[in-house]
């Protein structure tokens, strides 16, 4: 279907990026070109604002380095040398190579690799799942973001949207835990700010000093990975000091008595010793949180990124029930409101097409999977990367580079730009940006559906992800018409329009205003669990989790809908402290082998590695920096603006030191997203990141990372 595109228009769009805010955008088109974008002022959540990434989205669309045509590698792998070919030739080559690989080794020798470079029902998380499930390729377990926290959350409170983000305006006490709101969830801020202006207290828990921590009434800086001790000590204090809402606990939770006995060990003094936060401060925090009702906790994606991150979320998910915070609007826990959307996951993943018993590879293990350090039979012979740039986001950068350089690996990358990963492609396919395609977005940060209409024709020969998989299905001879569904069909068939939350929402409404709030009560009266009703096996908050009996697992949402061959390793049924694996930082003196704990948070102006090739965003972020505390810098003779080498056994990179209080003693902070090709030592922070997964849901442990720093 060809859409008629106006030469001059304002088109309703939606930001495609992997961000909870999913902003509604107005795309200005003149003479058939996008001349600018701005936030849609009518959208009640995103309120006319965009961000440092997207405020000049047209610069991404018309970036001189866009990949615009299919290309075949013409130099050594990694060299970035390519020559233009036709789509027909590219597709024929893929078909030929894949058929040969399937014949020799079976379809599991093919590995898809993707995540959320583009979100959206049509072109996002699941766009390739039906195709690869049908093909019988290895299942990719995509635990990039929030999977560990989601496993913990679902074990405790079930897949509930939790509190309405907008209801934070009515909170009396707010904890932002592991969340740099102003950089990574900025459109939630006005609701927090409104609560503050009405007298709410704001506590931010983050080892790093950020724009968000500067806004807090209280900034607590636990040693990285020790937050679990803090959360459990809060439970300890709340129970010991009689601050429990007994009525709520009796009616809507299970496992309270066991939890009560279990947390006896987690005294504030114990937590003080682990976290470095004063025991009296922990007591006050627990008391204030319990008594200032309604109280709210917003957890960020970063929360899961250490050895015990899952159990930390288990503990946090118990807190609102203990103090009865769920009773009122503005109380409770905010994790992923995504669960509010009546998404037809069955139609998006088509897990029914997968071959039973197909093996699963966790995507954080790509380096190991490609280099033989993960025992695989058959080995991976073909890699298909879309919506992702693993060389910058995945750990084990050196090994991954070796794997991608394998001459016998057939790598196809679909991309907008010549990323570090794209340089290793045998075939590079051009992908559209959001203004060149249609999509409908659900959100993992608010309760609105947001429509994105195509504004301009695809640049060059770029195709949307949905079109890419239609073409691949044809090449591979999939004759089920399902594989040729139009974007419009996917968009309409992937939601349950009969669900109560969709009542009053129509395509006409979405076309007219660009967004629609799910049919839920207004934020000032919406308290989804005032009367319990948690979607857990017991219908209650499971402080003692019945799902622990099945062992560790990843939600099928993060593994192509596939439920088989889960990890299954034992999980404690009660929230249990697990100290960091590497970032023990008891002794940050130079000389200890890797005495410093490194964190690599998101950069304000980049979305993971997206935008780190844009002049505007680089002007704000400058080059790779390493924030260090003066205590650690002095001990190493390092001053601000010195070049430093950061290293551990897994790799090293070079950065410009910035000495100050942004990093606490014993911790160094290296914002991520910078590209290898433009880095000083051809490596980025991911080169040092551990490959070990956290305790639940396959979460990475990137904040549990011991390093040493020296002058370069």
């Amino acid at each position, binding site marked *: 279907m060809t859409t008629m595109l106006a030469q001059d228009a304002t088109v309703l769009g939606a930001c495609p990026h992997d961000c909870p805010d999913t902003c509604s955008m107005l795309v200005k088109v003149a003479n058939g070109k996008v001349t600018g974008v701005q936030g849609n002022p009518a959208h009640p959540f995103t309120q006319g604002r965009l*961000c*440092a990434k997207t405020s000049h989205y047209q610069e991404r669309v018309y970036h001189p380095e866009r990949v615009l045509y299919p290309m075949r590698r013409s130099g050594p792998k990694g060299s970035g040398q390519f020559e233009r070919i036709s789509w027909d030739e590219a597709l024929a080559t893929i078909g030929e190579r894949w058929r040969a690989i399937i014949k020799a080794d079976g379809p599991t020798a093919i590995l898809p690799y993707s995540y959320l470079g583009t979100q959206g029902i049509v072109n996002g998380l699941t766009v390739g799942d039906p195709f690869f499930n049908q093909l019988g390729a290895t299942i990719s377990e995509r635990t990039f973001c929030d999977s560990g926290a989601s496993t913990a959350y679902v074990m405790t409170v079930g897949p509930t949207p939790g509190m309405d983000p907008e209801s934070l305006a009515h909170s009396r006490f707010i904890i932002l835990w592991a969340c740099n709101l102003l950089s990574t969830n900025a459109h939630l801020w006005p609701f927090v700010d409104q609560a503050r202006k009405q007298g709410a207290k704001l506590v931010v828990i983050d080892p790093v000093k950020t*724009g968000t921590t500067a806004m807090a009434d209280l900034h607590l800086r636990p040693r990285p990975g020790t937050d679990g001790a803090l959360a459990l000590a809060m439970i300890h204090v709340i129970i010991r000091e009689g601050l429990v809402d007994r009525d709520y606990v009796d009616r809507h939770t299970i496992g309270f008595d066991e939890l009560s006995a279990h947390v006896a060990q987690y005294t504030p003094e114990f937590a003080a010793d682990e976290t470095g936060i004063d025991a009296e401060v922990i007591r006050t925090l627990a008391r204030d949180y319990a008594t200032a009702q309604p109280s709210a906790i917003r957890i960020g994606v970063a929360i899961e990124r250490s050895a015990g991150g899952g159990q930390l979320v288990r503990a946090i998910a118990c807190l609102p029930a203990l103090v009865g915070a769920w009773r009122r609007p503005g109380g409770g826990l905010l994790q992923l409101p995504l669960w509010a959307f009546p998404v037809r996951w069955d139609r998006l993943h088509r897990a029914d097409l997968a071959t039973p018993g197909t093996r699963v590879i966790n995507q954080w293990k790509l380096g190991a999977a490609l280099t033989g350090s993960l025992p695989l039979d058959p080995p991976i012979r073909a890699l298909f990367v879309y919506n992702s740039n693993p060389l910058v986001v995945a750990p084990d950068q050196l090994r991954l580079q070796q794997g991608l350089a394998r001459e016998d690996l057939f790598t196809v990358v679909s991309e907008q730009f010549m990323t570090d990963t794209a340089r290793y492609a045998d075939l590079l396919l051009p992908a559209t940006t959001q203004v060149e395609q249609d999509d409908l977005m659900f959100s993992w940060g608010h309760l609105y559906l947001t429509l994105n209409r195509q504004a301009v024709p695809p640049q060059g020969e770029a195709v949307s992800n949905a079109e890419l998989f239609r073409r691949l299905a044809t090449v591979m001879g999939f004759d089920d018409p399902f594989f040729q569904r139009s974007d419009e069909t996917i968009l309409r068939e992937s939601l349950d329009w009969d669900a109560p939350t969709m009542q009053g929402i129509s395509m006409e409404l979405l076309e007219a205003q660009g967004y629609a709030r799910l049919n839920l009560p207004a934020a000032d009266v919406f308290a989804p669990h005032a009367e319990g009703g948690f979607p857990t096996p017991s219908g209650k908050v499971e402080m003692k989790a019945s799902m622990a009996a099945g062992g560790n697992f990843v939600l099928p949402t993060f593994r192509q809908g596939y439920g088989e061959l889960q990890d299954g390793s034992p999980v404690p049924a009660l929230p249990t402290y697990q100290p960091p694996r590497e970032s023990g930082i008891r002794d940050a003196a130079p000389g200890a082998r890797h005495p410093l704990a490194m964190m690599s948070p998101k950069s304000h102006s980049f979305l993971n590695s997206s935008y780190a090739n844009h002049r505007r965003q680089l002007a704000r972020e400058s080059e790779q920096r390493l924030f260090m505390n003066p205590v650690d810098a002095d001990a190493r003779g390092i001053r601000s603006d010195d070049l430093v080498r950061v290293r551990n056994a897994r790799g090293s990179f070079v950065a410009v030191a910035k000495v100050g209080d942004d990093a606490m003693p014993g911790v160094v902070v290296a914002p991520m997203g910078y590209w290898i090709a433009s880095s000083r030592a051809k490596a980025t922070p991911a080169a040092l990141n551990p490959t070990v997964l956290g305790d639940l849901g396959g979460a990475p442990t990137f904040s549990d990372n011991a390093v040493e720093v020296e002058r370069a």
Partner: protein
Amino acid sequence: MPHVVTDSCTACRYTECVALCPVDCFHAAEDRLYIDPEACIDCAACVPVCPVKAIVDAFDLESRADELIALNRQRSRELPVIDSKTAALPTAEARRAALGY
């Protein structure tokens, strides 16, 4: 780079922008506004509402960027936050016409 208020605001001070700022980064002088560059998060919501296009991303000012950021920073330190709209200055319409908007 942050957004900054340029001299076009002088004698106008429409203040259409201030309530839109999620981080209250506008500061008001008698004659014009300034943006605190440390607080600005580059959401750009204020840009389209200014009748005289006085707010720009400092990146687009190229050589003048540092100077304007410094001025906005300096004045923001001295002046109070403004977060709700006030009446434009009496000279605003004339100034707007002079600027060609």
